């Protein structure tokens, strides 16, 4: 069979040689290894002060996008909830009243939209499923909590604030761009 790595060794219980039986050479060798590690650069970082660079397509806490005029894009179609393998998303739809056009882009919107962050596996399927480019995963980390309840994120956390727009350009891969170019979905722009 082909070996997967060149580092595997065949185990054997042959008699130990004299040098092996007095342990000392092996011990000294081990000690020389550990002492070199003693002076090596540490691989850990001091997390809250230092942060590692995230991958460009890191999938963290979700954001519900607004469009350029600041209207919520989500139309409460429920496709994300259907796509979600962890069944983390729930929503309640409502009809847009006259005079609310500046708040919601579509005639139907999500009055309640909740993601249970304890259930979510950050797979990004909700993002793929969304026909309105309303939901995206971002490079923000879901904060820890002491109780379970606060992990159910409502619209107050998910919808991006008007003055603090979340940049999701990294998540808009070529597939997303193709999708946007498609004439059949022109109404989405």
């Amino acid at each position, binding site marked *: 069979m082909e070996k997967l790595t060149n580092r595997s060794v065949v185990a054997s219980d042959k008699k130990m040689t004299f040098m092996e039986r007095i*342990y000392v050479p092996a011990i000294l060798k081990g000690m020389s290894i*550990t002492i070199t*590690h*003693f002076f090596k650069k*540490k*691989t*850990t970082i001091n997390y809250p002060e230092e942060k590692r660079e995230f991958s460009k397509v890191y999938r963290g806490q979700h954001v519900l996008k607004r469009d350029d005029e600041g209207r919520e894009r989500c139309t409460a179609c429920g496709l994300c909830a259907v796509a979600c393998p962890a069944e983390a998303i729930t929503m309640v739809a409502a009809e847009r009243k006259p005079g609310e056009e500046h708040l919601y882009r579509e005639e139907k919107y999500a009055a309640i939209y909740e993601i249970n962050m304890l259930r979510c596996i950050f797979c990004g399927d909700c993002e793929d499923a969304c026909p309105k480019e309303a939901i995206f995963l971002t490079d923000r980390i879901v904060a820890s909590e002491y109780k379970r309840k606060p992990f159910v994120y409502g619209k107050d956390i998910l919808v991006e604030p008007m003055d603090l727009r979340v940049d999701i350009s990294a998540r808009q891969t070529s597939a997303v761009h193709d999708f946007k170019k498609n004439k059949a979905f022109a109404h989405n722009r």
Partner: protein
Amino acid sequence: MDYSTLIFKAIFLIIILLVTLVVAMYSTYAERKVAAFMQDRNGPNRAGPFGLLQPLADGLKMFMKEEIIPLTANKYLFILGPSIAMTTALLTGVVIPWGDTLTIGDHVYSLQMADLNIGILYVFAMVSIGVYGIMIGGWASNNKYALLGAIRAASQMISYELAMGMSIIALVLTTGSLSLHDIVSQQHGMHWNIFYQPLGFFIFLTCAFAETNRAPFDLPECETELIGGYHTEYSSMKLGFYLFAEYVNMFISSAVIATLYFGGYNMPFIDQLGLSSNAVTFIGMGFFFIKIFAFIFLFMWIRWTLPRFRYDQLMNMGWKGLIPLAIFNILATGTYYFFTSLK
């Protein structure tokens, strides 16, 4: 003995006790740092600058924990165990010569609590009693893991004490005295015993690891098999005492090794410097502590390098390896001195 000597001794005793405790406390910190560095980590760095307050935080945590004495345990022995472990660990420091003499006014004080003429034997006695702490604690817990750990500790200590004692016999052959003070003063300058007794030093060092229950000989407490061994049932500060006693033991063992084989407070070329005797004493004391810390580091270095021995390997090494070696060492030393004295 006049009053000034008594007062000096009392103050010195308290200082030694405090130093021992502080060094042991910071050994726990050093151990975690050394372990971390050897594993490419940072180690504790949250409590205070560089995590220097970590030992205090650990101690506080230990005190805050609930004190549990198991229902089926023998209460008195259960409490006696850690007390013995701690007491004997601290008692050994009495005979160690921490420095030469100090001259204050026209009094000359010796920086050794008690210059027993059987200093080495006293150290051995204390170390041997130390195993009672573990034995009693393990027995009183009424728990099979604790008992197994205690039995392991007892047999391991007896096995390695033999080899240790024999390595000391060879040392006594070269020094001709059992008093630690004499042994140290004989090693003045660079006449350290390590150069006369390298094999004895090696055996003594190995046994010291076994006596302090440090890896690779930490079978009595071996977490993986015995879930903590003799201190399985212990909690709160009683557990703290056991763990702390190990660090005190490590400190004292390092001091004993430095005293016996590395010249104690002696350092090379000190006579040529032409300093006053007090200055020499202080420099020597500093040098002694550097030696001790070097050995503590060695203890940690070994611990984080080697995996634990198997029990049969441990016994084989003790009885079939170290004891014959130690006997050979005695014979060789004895023969050497026999023939050199004939001339």
